[in-house]
Structure formats: C-alpha cells, structure tokens
C-alpha cells in the first residue's frame, strides 16, 4: 500500500485515510477531531492531514483536518443566524442559516419560546412586538430541544433581530433596543433589536442598504469579503441602545 506522498518530507503533515492507525492512545496522546480511539490506539476517521497540538496538561491532541468545510451541526451554546418563518403568541419557528461564521449547506429548524426572548420582564413579552416572519435574528442555542427543532434564546443584548424589512419592504434602521424605523415611510416598528458589536461590519453594511458599493465584485464574493473591502468608507453607524 502506498503511503501519502508527504509522509517522507519532514515538516509537512502526513496524509491519512479512514482506518489508518495514528499512534498509541497513552498518557501523552489524546484523540481529537477526526480521530477515534479504539483498543488502545488512535485511528483516523477522515481523509486529511494529521496535526498535533500541545495542551496545557502536557498531553498532545491528535487531530485530522480535511482542509474543507467541516460538517457541523448546532450544539448548545453556539450562536446562530436564523431567518424567522413563523410567529405565534407562544413561540416562533426559524431556519438556522449559519453557525458562528460558518454558512450551513443544509438548514436546521429552530424554535424560540416567548419566555426566552429577553432576560427581564419575561412575562410581558409579546411575540408580535419582537419578531415578524422574514426577520434575520441572532440567537444562542439553548438545547437540542424536542424531536423537532433546536431551542434558541435571545435573552442577551447582542442577540435579537439583526435585519428586518418594514411593511413597505425596505430594510429598517434600528432606533433603540425595541424599535426600528423604515427609511421609506419613517414608520416605526417594534422589534427586539440586537446590539451588533462594531467589528461586525457585514450586518452594518447590510443595514445601511442605501450605500451600495459600485465597484467590481470578485467572483464568489460573500459578506465577510465585502465587509473587509468597505471598512475604509464604513457607513455612519446608527446609535444602538
């Protein structure tokens, strides 16, 4: 059987395939991502290159990295971006589009209950004054929930509605933590608005939709790329409470 071409050259990580034995699982080596420990040895379970990492307790973490998008699924505690699909007085349903900064290839369904909308005055929450279908929200995964969907929460200042369209169809500008304004009609609508940290330019750019760049986009240009391009002439930022 042929070993990976990189095996000979020192300094370059070794290429492995599923089932390859990496090392013994002893006090010094711990199985990390992309590996599996079985009968005293660490085996690879992905195609990729082996990396080891020194850890604080002087053990080495053995990992296999594929170098392409990882197949990730939402776990408790991860911050997700989701689009609201359905709202009723008790809860809302949404589609999870991104986990952290990774865009998901396949959408997952999420659910946000009324009592998880905000941290204070939880019994006075009215769902329709916080979310509308079509809004893009930032939320944290609380638990894997029941059989149907992940349970989310927006009970933090940084969580809530990130992007919302008004009834007139325009992207709204946040006024406070509870209000947004339509730039076309100047009408105010109620939302549970997320406070977006200043470094998150993608959302800021999207929110200031009037200032569109008139320059050439590179093929496959995406949000974060855009945000880097336009940090220089970053639009004025609306005050967020």
């Amino acid at each position, binding site marked *: 059987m042929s070993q990976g071409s990189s095996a000979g050259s020192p300094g370059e990580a070794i290429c492995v395939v599923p089932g390859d034995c990496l090392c013994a699982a002893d006090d010094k080596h711990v199985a990390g991502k992309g590996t599996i420990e079985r009968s005293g040895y660490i085996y690879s379970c992905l195609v990729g290159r082996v990396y080891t990492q020194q850890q604080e307790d002087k053990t080495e973490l053995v990992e296999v990295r594929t170098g392409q998008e990882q197949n990730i699924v939402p776990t408790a505690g991860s911050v997700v971006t989701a689009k609201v699909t359905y709202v009723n007085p008790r809860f809302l349903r949404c589609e999870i589009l*991104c986990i952290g900064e990774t865009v998901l290839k396949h959408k997952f369904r999420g659910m946000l209950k009324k009592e998880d909308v905000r941290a204070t005055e939880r019994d006075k929450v009215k769902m329709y004054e916080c979310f509308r279908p079509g809004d893009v929200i*930032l939320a944290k995964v609380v638990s894997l929930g029941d059989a149907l969907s992940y349970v989310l929460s927006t009970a933090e200042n940084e969580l809530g509605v990130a992007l919302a369209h008004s009834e007139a169809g325009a992207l709204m500008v946040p006024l406070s933590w509870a209000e947004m304004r339509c730039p076309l009609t100047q009408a105010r609508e109620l939302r549970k608005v997320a406070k977006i940290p200043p470094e998150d*330019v993608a959302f800021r750019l999207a929110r200031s939709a009037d200032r569109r760049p008139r320059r050439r986009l590179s093929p*496959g240009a*995406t949000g974060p790329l855009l945000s880097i391009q336009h940090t220089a002439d970053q639009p004025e930022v609306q005050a967020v409470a």
Partner: protein
Amino acid sequence: MAADMRAIQPESLYKLHLECEERPDGRKLDAARTTVVTRGGITTADGSAFCRSGHTSVLCGIKAEVCTPATDAPPDRGWVVPNLELPALCHHRFRPGPPSEAAQTASAQLLQLLDASGALDRTQLCIEAGQAVWVLYCDLICLSHDGNVLDVALLALSAALTDLRLPSAEWDATEERLRVKPAQRTPLKLGPLPLAATLAVFDKETLVLDPAGDEEMLCEASVTVAWAGDSMVLLDKTGGCELSLEAMDRCIALSKKRSLELKKLLDCCTQSGEVEKGE
C-alpha cells in the same frame, strides 16, 4: 459572528452583482456556462449522450424496441418516448419517491419539442406497416441539478438521437416474424434538432442567460425559447413578472444566438467523441 450575506440576503447580494454586470460565478449577463457534450458513453444503450453545463449534468440513453402499432395509431409510424428523471441524487431538495410533477411536465415538454421541430420523421421507425415499428425509449437522468435542466436535457436528447444506430430489421412475411440483425446498424436521418435557451429575468428588464440553480430560485421570471434551425418551436414564459414586448424581442434574439452556438457544438461532434466549448 459576521454572517455571510450569501446566506442571509441572497437577493441584495445578487443585486450588487447585477449592478456590476457580473454574476456570482464570474459570467457576463449574456454568457452561458461551459457546455460539454459527450456521445456514446453507454455501451448497453443503442444511442447515448452525456451533457454538462456548469454543474448541471444530464445523461441520456436510448433503447430501441420493436412493437406492433396499436389499432388506433397510424400503422406506419414508430414512437419516441422521452422520460426525464430527477432523482434524489441530483439535488438535496429532491426526495426519493415517484416522479415529481416537474419531471413529468419536462418529459411531456421534451416530446412536444421533438414533435414540433419535425427533426425525426417517424415513418423511418416503421419496419412493416401495421406489423412492427420501432419504439425509441429515451431515458434521461439528471445526475446533477444546478438550474436550467430542460435546456441541458434537450441538448442531451438531441445529441443521443444523432448517436443512435438502429439495428437493421426485416419483416419475414411468410413466417410472420421479425429478423433483427443487431450487428448491422444505421443512423437515423434527422432534420434540424430542437435546441433551447432559457433566460432569467431580474428587475423586470434585466435578462440573464442560462441561469444557475441559485439564480433560478431568485429570479422574477424565466423565459424558455427553443429553436429548430430557423423556426421557433417553443416560447414558454410561465409565471413571474410581466415583460415588455421589447424585452421579449431581446429574449428571442439572445436565445437564437445561443441555439446557434449549441448547434455548432452538436455539429462539431457528429463523430463520436467529446467536444468542449470554452466560454
């Protein structure tokens, strides 16, 4: 937490692209994807072709069978039965199960296009009037779906028809049975084959040729125009926004240009082989 604009606001991102007159995959608005035609890949079929346009691929295999014409059908004409499958394999949106409505209507449309073009004189498929005629089962499988399947399927069907070699068959009147010689095969005589071009409409006026899967989902309307030589065999605008007649005229001109390109592509590889058209 920087979220990707592509995931959250595909519409706005696409608008940005249109303003720059360049599409997300780097194409100009009136450019088609790289199209590849490969003929005769499937040796178990009597004629076959594989067509790929960008990430959309369709494989067509034709099997010829003999049958007696039904009593209410013309006795001296054979049949062509195109059948397009959109299996779960080609896109994650599809699920395993019976053929979808989209696949069924596309199959019907393929037959309609072939009939309207008059490319295939079905009397060629007659072996003995009233006794035996050929039935061409043209099975098309979409292997990868990234928009604009009908155009690619029609190209695959046309290419497979040019690749088809029918076994010579004779009706023995004295013994009332058929003699087929699978070793002796002849191609069909074909007229101008139907070739289609689809355009997507954005912003009521902007026309985009050969839409990819994402564009197909975002667009406001789509127009399919099919040509057989110089005559139009189909103009289908189902759904979507209203169009001015001037925009329709541009659709017709653009589709005509594209169909000529496709025709050149087909002619280039009349001999069995692979021809690639770079954009």
